[in-house]
């Protein structure tokens, strides 16, 4: 069995001078919707250093979903550059982007997006399947990731046999299992009750404390508040709501 690097050990506190994990320069995204041209993102610069916990806020229609798609390499910018872990991904084709997503990014979705026919551990092993990891190692790593999110006793349960909070924890385990550079959470608590919300936010806090880089897209203040840094998307442009290290405030975020 392959020994998996333990993310709980030997991780330094976030360093402000650390090299940027991701860097967006002048990113725009323009859609064509029939006759209409939609400028969803109108020139965004954003730098996230390794180990940072950043919240992207903004009302619906602000372009934050489009930004999330670009950050997650699910879509490419119309112009501008996007460097992820030292690679320019803005010009990549679909095939290469798939590899980048697989190796560098762990997704946590609002809808969980678990496959209902697969048990918890089979859901968690999916990214490893596409990475070409052997079956035996996949299972070991999936079980370990589930243990990390506190679901060691639920590995054989189907998603329908789990509560919403547990399902989201499975998807966090799936995001962790490849040891990605970036965890990208899109409204991770949008479908959860308040108890489960706290549970997931606690989990993200813990991952951050262990040195993970996390970007959360949310419109909820309680969620954004947990982040180290908050940026606000409005009309396709990004503004810094609070500087790193500064305590975040509700009023500023929604101003």
């Amino acid at each position, binding site marked *: 069995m392959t020994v998996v690097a333990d993310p709980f050990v030997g991780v330094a506190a976030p360093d402000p001078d650390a090299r940027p994990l991701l860097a967006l320069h002048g990113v725009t995204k323009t859609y064509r919707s029939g006759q209409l041209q939609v400028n969803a993102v109108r020139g965004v610069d954003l730098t996230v250093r390794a180990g940072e916990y950043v919240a992207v806020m903004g009302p619906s229609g602000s372009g934050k979903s489009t930004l999330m*798609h670009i950050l*997650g390499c*699910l*879509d490419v910018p119309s112009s501008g550059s996007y460097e992820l872990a030292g690679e320019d991904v803005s010009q990549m084709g*679909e*095939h290469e982007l*798939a*590899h980048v*997503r*697989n*190796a560098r990014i762990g*997704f946590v*979705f609002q809808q969980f*997006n678990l*496959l209902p*026919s*697969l048990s918890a551990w089979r859901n968690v092993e*999916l*990214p490893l*399947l*596409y*990475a*070409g990891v052997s*079956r035996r190692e996949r299972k070991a790593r999936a079980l370990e990731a589930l243990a990390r999110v506190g679901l060691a006793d639920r590995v054989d349960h189907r998603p329908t046999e789990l509560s919403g909070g547990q399902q989201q924890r499975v998807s966090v385990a*799936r995001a962790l299992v490849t040891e990605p550079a970036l965890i990208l959470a899109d409204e991770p608590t949008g479908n959860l009750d308040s108890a489960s919300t706290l549970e997931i936010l606690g989990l993200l806090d813990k991952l951050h404390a262990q040195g993970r880089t996390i970007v959360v897209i949310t419109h909820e203040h309680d969620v954004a508040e947990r982040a180290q840094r908050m940026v606000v998307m409005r009309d396709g442009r990004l503004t810094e709501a609070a500087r790193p290290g500064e305590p975040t405030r509700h009023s500023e975020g929604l101003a």
Partner: protein
Amino acid sequence: MSWLETFRTAGDALRTRRLRSALTVLGILIGIAAVMLTVGLGQGASQRITDQINKLGSNLLIVTPGSTTTVGGVRGGRGTATTLSMDDAQLLADRSVAPDIARVAPVSQSSLTVLAGATNWTSTVVGTTPDWLEVRARAIASGRFFTSAEVASESSVAIIGSTTATQLGLDSPVGQMITVGGQTLTVVGLLETAGSTTGGDQDDLVVIPQSTFAARLSTSANPRAVSTIYVEVRDQASLSAAYQEVSTALLTAHGVTTTTADFTVSSQQAIVDTVTTTARILTVLLASIAGISLLVGGIGVMNIMLVSVAERVREIGLRKALGATPGVILRQFLVEASLLGIIGGLAGIGLGLLGASVLPGLLGQPVTISPLSAAVALAVSLAIGIGAGVYPASRAARLAPIDALRSE
């Protein structure tokens, strides 16, 4: 992602939608089984006909009156043209006229009621010469055949087939008396069983000397007329030479040309060819109809794969987000469609084999299924699966991950 993992994922997907997969497989299954069985029935039938005809002797030429009959080794007796006579048979038996001919057996025949005591049975009564036994490749089970002397003396003797003996209730027919057309005959021999052919039951007949038939039973105006002349050729290689000799001799004797010929010479081989050609045409026709059901099965696979892609847009999007390349998605759906095809093919072969073992008992027809036809069936079902999967799979592969994830 390895091929093994692709198959496993595809298998999981099919198992999740068990009923739907099973119904889709059913379409292919029925198609494959139908094609296999129709082809098998056709091959079995033509094989059996060929075997039966060859059993009657493959070095045989059959001369029949008129030029209308080319198919069927045995010709019906009364009411047909009587342009052949005993003189023709004697001419052909002459070595100087036809050196490639070994034996000649003229046959006159009629369907007549045969009586044995109080039991009656309608049988084919054949008047012929002693060479008939050799020419028709028959054998005597008990007793003896009649002799040339008995032909010359118009003796009241008969040799009967096993079916006739059974129907007349004669356990040991040799020495018994039977009455045919008011004539009392002594049974001197019993024929060995030959089985049924296209010409009818070869064991339901009464064989008597030609002279006896002509003098006492024939209704024909010309007592020397015969309905068929069987000609045994020396060997297979001399078949075409003998054919020429027979034609030339009879054309000269009857004073006619090939265009006005009042007889037909056909070889056993020509009959076999005609029959197998007919069987093949029928087989192709039936297999085409069965092939249509296979095509419909293939359309079913494509339909279900399109539904599957439409239904699993979110799953496809998720898999792509997690790192599945378009190629991996394409492969996954192609393998799913191929699995449906292969499973349908294998099950179809199974059903075909089952049918091949059950049908002969029900229909009385042999079914021949060769390993080749099974292999072809499997290859065809795989090709159908792949063919039906290409379009749905490429649609799945082309889905943009964000559109796919967004769909509800």
